[in-house]
């Protein structure tokens, strides 16, 4: 039936874009249909995915529905996501990392103000890569979360300790003690 196909596709669109489980009632309300119809629409969708050998499947969670991939595709997804992680750090990521390395612990706000652009997704991605970690809250107004480099960071750059951080050219006479005040007095 044409109308049913149309409704199925609409439900599919909603589930796809939402990314997370969507309550049956919300789908029904959006489509202007009764909630009782939702399971049969979902079954249509599931059958279509099966028949066409799609990698997708419909998942039911209590009264909500979600789109996902069939289990058999997990390995290939994992491989694909991992290959991406092994890209070398971007210029921007490298820069955020050095700001943290030379001034730790620093907040996302500090990094944003130094760079003049919101850098919080870069900070998160550096944390995912294990190069930085949270270091409690910093004693400045607002008490933001501070970030510091990790042991992996030292390994990646072949350092034994933070004391071995190379002196940045013009700032060679600076003492990098991790204390903001002292560095800047001499800068």
């Amino acid at each position, binding site marked *: 039936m044409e109308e049913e196909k149309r409704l199925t596709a609409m439900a599919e669109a909603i589930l796809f874009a939402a990314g997370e489980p969507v309550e049956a009632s919300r789908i029904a309300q959006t489509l202007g249909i009764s909630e009782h119809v939702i399971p049969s629409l979902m079954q249509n969708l599931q059958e279509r995915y099966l028949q066409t050998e799609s990698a997708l499947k419909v998942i039911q969670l209590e009264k909500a529905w979600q789109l996902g991939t069939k289990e058999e595709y997990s390995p290939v997804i994992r491989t694909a996501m991992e290959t991406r992680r092994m890209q070398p750090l971007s210029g921007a990521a*490298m820069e955020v990392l050095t700001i943290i*390395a030379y001034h730790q612990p620093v907040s996302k706000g500090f990094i944003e103000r130094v760079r003049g652009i919101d850098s919080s997704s870069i900070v998160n991605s550096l944390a995912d890569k294990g190069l930085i970690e949270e270091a409690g809250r910093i004693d400045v*107004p607002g008490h933001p979360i501070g970030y510091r480099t990790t042991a992996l960071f030292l390994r990646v750059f072949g350092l034994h300790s933070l004391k071995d951080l190379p002196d940045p050219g013009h700032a060679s006479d600076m003492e990098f003690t991790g204390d903001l005040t002292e560095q800047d007095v001499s800068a």
Partner: protein
Amino acid sequence: MTEIRFRLPVFEGPLALLLHLIDKHQLNIYDIEITELLEQYLLYMEEAREQDLELAGEFLEMAARLIYIKAVSLLPKPEEAEKAKQELQGALLEYAFIQKTAKILKACFIADDIFVRKPMKLPKIKKDYSLRHSPEKLAEVYERVDRTRIKALSEKITDTVTQEKSVSVISKAVSVLRKLYQGNAVRVESLYDGVTDHSARVAIFLAVLELTRFGRISLNADNTVITIKKGR
């Protein structure tokens, strides 16, 4: 000529205004009559002033630039005048190109009608970074960071921190409580008696707030008198 007052058009910047004037007065963009352009430009600025239209600093800078071009064109130095004019002409052509292209591009706008998904969250397989770099890379990258900003920021932070430390809220809270124990009720105003230092006054204010928040003291309805809370 009858004088009719129009609301002045607003321009995105001096270049937009210049292009408008060039077009309106049919000036040749490839050989600008600088005197005419300057006159029209200043006229616009004057009208903007009369209509209380605030113009960005860049408009003044452009006026200065036009005056400069006019000045050198009066001097017996044709090369310099020509060079200044060429530069302005280049800027105008480039900007006109952008204006035109922006319009064409805008026509392509189809909004965000194609929806995509957020990346799927995989069971946390935290993958450590596995590449290796030389330590010098860090210094090299850090070189390019705007150090003046770091300096300015650090000073600001240090300032606030030392300020906070020099007049701690806790010590003010203690002295507020001490005053309250001496008498039953205290006028808020009297807490500030003899305190001139700005940060100290702020600390007193914060101390009263904190004490109220923790239920140690209560304020009367119009926030002028504080009393110690009973039963504590």
